């Protein structure tokens, strides 16, 4: 067995008689649409989220085209407002939140635990249908006139003034939210109850810890979003005054309820990415993680603290300044566990045997971009500074660094890492490395100028802007086209690899972890016999790896 250096070494032996989960369980469309196999469900989610990602990406492209010039000359103001709303709602709820958990989590978690499936496979399928039912409503809202409230649906604009398909979109998000809740519930029970013998909590891979923390947030925060959207929709239908000041209601109450969910939601979006990074950094430096307990504990700390900081979205919303003081302090504290993770990943590289395969390039990119995005979070937590930069492009840049530079990068890394296991094929390694580089350059060019133009004062959600902001908008739009290419390339070669990629061996990366103890792709039931675990995770040895390389 040789160590992975720049890519997997050999092809799998021709074992064409072996049945994989693609054959077992039926090969008709119905067998896929009625499957309860977590692996098939993971793939179903992958197709679904790509569909919504495509719509949202087109919206982004149109926005960046419009923003090349200061005047609103490409689309009308109403259309622009609909574009950024569509982009935000679809990206957050129909791409980012499901991405790693519903695609990679569904596929990998049972296998990492040595289980045959999740705890409630039928509920898993129901999650996917709820997700797509919600997505259908959202797509309807997009296609038949759009929504123009922004993904944040602030009242009273959304509840009383907007003339767009607010209720349809809210209903879509509501229903999809129940899919998320069921997925989170499924993961929690699976992790508690379906671990293989010997797989104690502190022997779990950190991907599991991250997804466990994510699932707890999913389960506790999403219901609050559901009721908030329901209240807003009922206000819109019956005009009862919950958020209408003319009837004694409080529009800022909506913001409290909305952000109580939406702040933890951003941790739903980043924690799984961090989990992927822990898996990839250890594998490609051939070293156990430095500080296992602290990295796992940091996930839990982020989940808990994440529920306590929602008011930092409301420093200028007429919230009391004393509330602001509390939320600012807690926001500074929630930065600490994230920093701990970055330090631990860095120390994992020390005295390792590091190879720069595509997953590792994405992981390193994540660490760089997430660090920058996280540091700009410190700017926002500073009360006095947030007054100036809130609601400007500084915020837009901050969250895109975390969500795109962080989460999407981690998703790409995870997809490349587990692709051989999922499809039984290898993607072309050199193209993978090239795409990662293109993405990295394009990303920074797109979003770094937005920090500058935000501090200069360019507000967000502006369709036309003051002329002195133009240079940064041009740079940003140029970067966006490069970023687009960086995402398009993997789409092409992944599809190509399904038929033409080299066949993958069971463990092309020589990784630890139970999921690699199965063939690629695995059979429907994952394991012939339930494996027994007797050691800590990440039992890599850099010295042994070096011997492999040289000897």
């Amino acid at each position, binding site marked *: 067995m040789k*160590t992975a*250096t720049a890519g997997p070494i050999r092809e799998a032996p021709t074992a064409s008689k072996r049945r994989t989960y693609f054959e077992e369980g039926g090969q008709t469309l119905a067998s896929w649409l009625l499957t309860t196999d977590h692996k098939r469900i993971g793939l179903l989610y992958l197709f679904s989220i790509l569909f919504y990602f495509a719509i949202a990406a087109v919206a982004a492209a149109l926005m960046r085209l419009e923003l090349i010039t200061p005047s609103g000359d490409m689309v009308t103001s109403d259309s622009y*407002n609909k574009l950024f709303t569509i982009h935000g709602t679809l990206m957050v709820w129909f791409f980012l939140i499901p991405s790693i958990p519903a695609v990679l989590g569904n596929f990998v978690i049972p296998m990492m635990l040595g289980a045959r499936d999740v705890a409630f496979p039928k509920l898993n399928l129901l999650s996917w249908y709820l997700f797509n039912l919600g997505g259908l409503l959202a797509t309807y809202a997009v296609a038949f006139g759009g929504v123009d409230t922004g993904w*944040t649906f*602030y009242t*009273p*604009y959304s509840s009383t003034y*907007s003339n767009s398909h607010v209720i349809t979109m809210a209903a879509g998000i509501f229903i999809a939210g129940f899919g998320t809740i069921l997925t989170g519930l499924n993961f929690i029970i699976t992790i508690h109850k379906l671990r293989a013998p010997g797989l104690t909590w502190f022997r779990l891979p950190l991907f599991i810890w991250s997804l466990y923390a994510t699932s707890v947030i999913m389960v506790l925060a999403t219901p609050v979003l559901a009721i908030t959207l329901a209240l807003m929709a009922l206000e819109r239908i019956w005009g009862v005054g919950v958020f209408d*000041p*003319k009837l004694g209601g*409080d*529009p800022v109450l909506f913001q409290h309820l909305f952000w109580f969910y939406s702040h933890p939601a951003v941790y739903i979006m980043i924690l799984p990415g961090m989990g992927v990074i822990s898996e990839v950094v250890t594998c490609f*430096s051939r070293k156990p993680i430095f*500080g296992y307990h*602290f990295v796992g504990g940091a996930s839990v700390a982020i989940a808990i603290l994440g529920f306590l900081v929602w008011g930092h979205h409301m420093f*200028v*919303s*007429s919230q009391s300044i004393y509330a602001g*003081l509390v939320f*600012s*302090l807690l926001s*500074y504290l929630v*930065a*600490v566990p994230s*920093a*701990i993770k*970055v330090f631990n990943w*860095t*120390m994992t590289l*020390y*005295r*390792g045997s*590091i190879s*720069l395969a595509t997953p590792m390039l994405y992981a390193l990119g994540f660490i760089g971009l997430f*660090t*920058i995005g996280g540091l*700009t979070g*410190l700017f926002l937590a*500073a*009360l*006095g*500074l*947030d*007054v*100036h930069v809130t*609601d400007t492009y500084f915020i837009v840049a901050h969250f895109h660094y975390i969500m795109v530079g962080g989460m999407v990068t981690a998703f790409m890394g995870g997809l490349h890492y587990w692709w051989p296991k999922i499809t039984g094929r290898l993607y072309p390694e050199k193209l993978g490395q090239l795409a990662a580089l293109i993405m990295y350059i394009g990303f920074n060019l797109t979003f770094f100028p937005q920090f500058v133009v935000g*501090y*200069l*004062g360019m*507000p967000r959600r*502006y*369709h*036309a*802007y003051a002329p*002195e902001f133009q*240079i940064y908008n041009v740079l940003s739009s140029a970067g966006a086209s490069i970023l687009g290419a960086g995402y398009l390339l993997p789409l092409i070669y992944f599809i190509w690899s399904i038929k033409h990629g080299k066949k993958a061996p069971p463990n092309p990366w020589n990784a630890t972890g139970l999921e690699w103890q199965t063939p690629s792709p695995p059979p429907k039931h994952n394991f012939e016999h339930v494996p027994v675990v007797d050691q800590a995770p990440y039992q890599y040895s*850099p*010295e042994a790896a*070096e011997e492999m*390389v040289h000897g």
Partner: protein
Amino acid sequence: MNFPILPTAASKVAQQTDALYWGLIILSLVIILIVFCPIIFFLFKYRAGKPADRRPVHLPEMTIEITWTLIPMFIMICYYAWGAKQYFVIERPPPGAMEINVVGKQWMWKIQHPEGNREINELHVPVGRIVKFTMTSQDVIHSFFLPEFRIKQDVVPGRYTTEWFKAERIGVYHLFCSEFCGTFHSGMTGRVVVMSPAEYESWLLKGEPGSTMSESGERLYRELGCSGCHSGSSIVRAPPLEGLFNKPVPLADGTVVTADEAYLRDSILFPAKQIVGGYTNDMPSFQGRISEEELLQLIAYLKSVANAAPGLRNSLEGSP
């Protein structure tokens, strides 16, 4: 090609905010160096295939973890304190401010000076003077953003919010709405014109306002019938309003509130919400009969009599 990094700093507060900004940038650069340099160094030194000492080394893991938890925590608290201090400066107007009213509506800013001058999407102020805004919205939430002064405050329907600044440089600056408010959100912009005190005075006179804010308010006080109940000689018992502004008010349920702008506005629009102790719930609501600007003018009038002695009362004062 011009690559501005900072907007003009047109006030001391702006300079202080910029200092905080640079402080955070320096912190960020330090952390980036601390993180990126070792990573890049390790990537080279421990590249697979490159000879190096990779023997497992027993590091004091707990000590390291606690150290790099506590030191960042301490640094976080320092920046927190700095940011909080700046926030108090921004949110608390100093005394002696010139009070300007702002009403936001889709999609324009309506501004009124105490002398009565009105503006739309423009704000003329004298340099070196503290200006305090009392703001509300007629419809949805907007936000009054002055980037060169580094201040911003949401303008919320149904309540008053305040913001203040003191311009130190003559010039023309941006005014942006920075809370998404519908179709022409990006068009809800304007100019802040900071002038010398002499120019400001002549600008005020040129505007030829018919009456000052509080004079308009006094006229409304009579025209809407407020004086009918609230002046000392009326038959109906209503609390006197002279000398009321910013004083404590005991309510019927035993609590005590302060008669600030919000209280006065609610009393006019939702009189049943808080009944003054010793009075009954007889006041009609003026909701729909008075605009936001008129409310602000009434309040300006009540502020102008804040130091007057309470008017003559009925002899039946006290318990009902």
